[in-house]
């Protein structure tokens, strides 16, 4: 018991939570945007891998860290465009298309990575984002490092939660996006083309997925290796359900998941005699439990996974 208390009272663990949560925040926002407009995007796992690779490669080739993030976001948007073209105007099955994009984007990442660094045996590194030193605030005991000793992309992710919540709930565009996810016919009847709206929103959501991947190589670690996304994309898909398709709750879900993850990482090192795989399971088991509780209350967007064709009901 005292072990648990020790972990919970350590600054290091709380400091780690927001860092671990950042890719989940960005990825979950991305999935959330796509699903709010009515399209499931299972390409996230691959798009994150590609974002991680291309963001790292851009910096490795000599560009700045922010340029790396930007390139990752743009590449994410391009994969989003591919997914959107296949699922929206062509109305293909969204599960199959999304999984196809994940396979394609993952493999394509390894391919480019091997082309770029053919000989290296250990992954080459770049100089990643450093924690921002906020004057005064960072020096507050406990809260200072936990909240303010974070990297710029983490702050960006937190800012994006606010921006996306504002766009969805306070702007005409956001209302049109939500309406498209519920009933695209109604949007069309108001003279807005739901096809273009879907394509654009999926691109934006996929750009966030690319960012989520790039955070891994440019802030959380400093190098790229092919299996580094490790199912984080799939967790984001589940977190969106947990979040009931709301940005604020998406943040909550990502932080909660990160908390369990940070907790089990430390638990592994102090508890003996228990296979570490059990601890690795912990966040996933707890996520499933949380999902079971939350999913009962979910108001799923009514047109999710329903292709829109004009003049057809």
């Amino acid at each position: 018991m005292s072990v648990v208390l020790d972990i919970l009272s350590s600054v290091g663990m709380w400091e780690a939570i927001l860092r671990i949560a950042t890719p989940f925040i960005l990825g979950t926002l991305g999935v959330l945007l796509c699903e709010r407009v009515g399209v499931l995007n299972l390409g996230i796992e691959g798009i994150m891998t590609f974002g991680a690779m291309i963001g790292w490669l851009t910096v490795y080739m000599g560009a700045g860290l922010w340029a790396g993030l930007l390139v990752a976001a743009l590449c994410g948007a391009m994969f989003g465009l591919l997914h959107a073209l296949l699922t929206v105007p062509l109305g293909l099955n969204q599960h199959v298309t999304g999984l196809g994009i994940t396979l394609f984007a993952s493999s394509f990442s390894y391919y480019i990575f091997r082309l770029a660094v053919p000989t290296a045996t250990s992954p080459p590194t770049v100089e990643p984002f450093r924690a921002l030193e906020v004057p005064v605030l960072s020096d507050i005991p406990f809260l200072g490092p936990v909240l303010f000793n974070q990297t710029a992309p983490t702050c960006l992710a937190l800012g994006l939660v606010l921006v996306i919540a504002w766009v969805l709930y306070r702007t005409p565009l956001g209302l049109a996006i939500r309406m498209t996810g519920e009933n695209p016919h109604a949007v069309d009847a108001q003279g807005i083309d739901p096809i273009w709206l879907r394509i654009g929103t999926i691109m934006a959501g996929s750009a966030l997925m690319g960012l989520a991947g790039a955070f891994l190589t440019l802030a959380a670690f400093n190098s790229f290796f092919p299996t580094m996304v490790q199912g984080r994309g799939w967790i984001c898909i589940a977190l969106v359900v947990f979040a009931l398709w709301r940005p604020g709750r998406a943040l909550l879900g990502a932080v909660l998941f990160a908390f369990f993850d940070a907790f089990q990482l430390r638990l592994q090192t102090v508890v003996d005699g228990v296979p570490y795989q059990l601890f690795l399971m912990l966040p996933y088991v707890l996520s499933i439990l949380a999902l079971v509780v939350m999913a009962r209350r979910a108001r799923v967007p009514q047109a999710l996974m329903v292709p829109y064709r004009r003049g057809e009901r």
Partner: protein
Amino acid sequence: MTRVLELDGITKRFGTTLANDDVSLHLEKGEVVALLGENGAGKTTLMSILFGHYTADEGSVRVNGETLPPGKSRAAIDAGVGMVHQHFALAANLTVLDNVMTGTEPLWRLRSDRAAARARLTRLSERFGLPVDPDAHVSDLSVGERQRVEILKALYNDARILILDEPTAVLTTQQSERLFATLREMTAQGLSIIFISHKLNEVMAASDRVVVLRGGRVVAERATRETTKEELAELMVGRAVERPKRPPAQPGAVRLEVTDLHLSGKGGAALNGVSLMLRGGETLGIIGVSGNGQTTLAGVVSGLYPPDRGTVKIDGAELRRHDVPHAIAAGIGRIPEDRHAEGVLGDMTTWENVALERLWAPEFSRRGIVRRSAARAAARHILATYDVRGAHLDGRVGLLSGGNMQKLILGRVLEADPSIIVAAQPSRGLDEGAIAGVHRRLIAARDRGAGVLLISEDLDEVIALSDRIRAIVNGRVSPAIPAERADARLLGLMMAGDWDAAREIEAAADKMPEAQDAL
């Protein structure tokens, strides 16, 4: 009068079929025009062209003298045309205000002015007598309220011309009357209205002028007060409509006996002690304002849910397992109220839908394997015998029109030769021709010795088909009266829950069983 809308020589082809053939139509300010026609006459296509959902092959649309660019909904909205769709274009998970506001502001504005929108919506709903809570989720609203939202949406867009596509298809009689009163109020305030309908009663009651469409062409135009229901019916169908003549009933053995049924919480309104009896060879009509338990009654009898208390006896044997397979095996044939949701699986093929309900019967499966050829033969037989048009054995059932879908369901039920037929709103949403067909089939089934439990909100239908009539009010059924004694006043009293007169008539009928046999 000023002419606010003019459709000129509209022609629209889908492949080789001519949906609209040189249709011209106009609307004066403050006028209510009814666009009358059977299903498939081209009414909805015409209005979709007007609203920019489709582009016409020929012809033009003018609003207040200005020609609308084809294929642009926004242009129609901006010109003041509002459309109230048959299947409401609403998002159930969003609020009323969200639904009304969508697309009314420039898309890229950084902040939408919800306070102003709310005020405007409240003003409109007061002005036109359409009360609605802006913050209610649409999923929590009744069908009538949803339609109100849909109308408000059009008004919010400054519509001066309102087009309603079969506005009463999903409404009860009371809701329809309220709707038409609202429409009158709107024309008094200078709006002009076109409503699409195939119901003669409401066309006669609510319009100033009737335009009759048949086979994509305008076949006639009449001022409503100078025409009659009979003339309109003939114009619409192209032949005189003959509702089937009903030979007298030959009541046989008791087929269905339900005793003291109680059920609350399932399938909508509760049942509070329903007892009734149905003989073979007769039709028992159940009338009533919707929401008084008729849907629940149909559900319990056809096995959808078990009652809390009470029994259902079919041919003398009590139904012990209350599920659909057992009900069907016991001899129930069900024609569900909502054919899209409960009658067919729209995404499956015709033959699969024919076989599904009795899949376990030896006719359709053996040792767990579906007998495809037998099922397909049965489906082919139904398509031919029941005149189901536009259906292919391997085509999706969801693509059929309402009338043809209902014919398919009827065929599936009647071919199984059920001893009891539960027909809930069997002609809802069908055109006159299809209604007559459904009625003929139900009467034929009765004459073959089946008991028909007819649950309908259409009084004409109940009077035309039933031998005895009961009303259902608040989960209880009234005494039964012979159909010959039914008149508007008596039925009205029964539906209102005043059963004294009905009780006397029932008692008198019971005292003279000989006289009843003689009928």
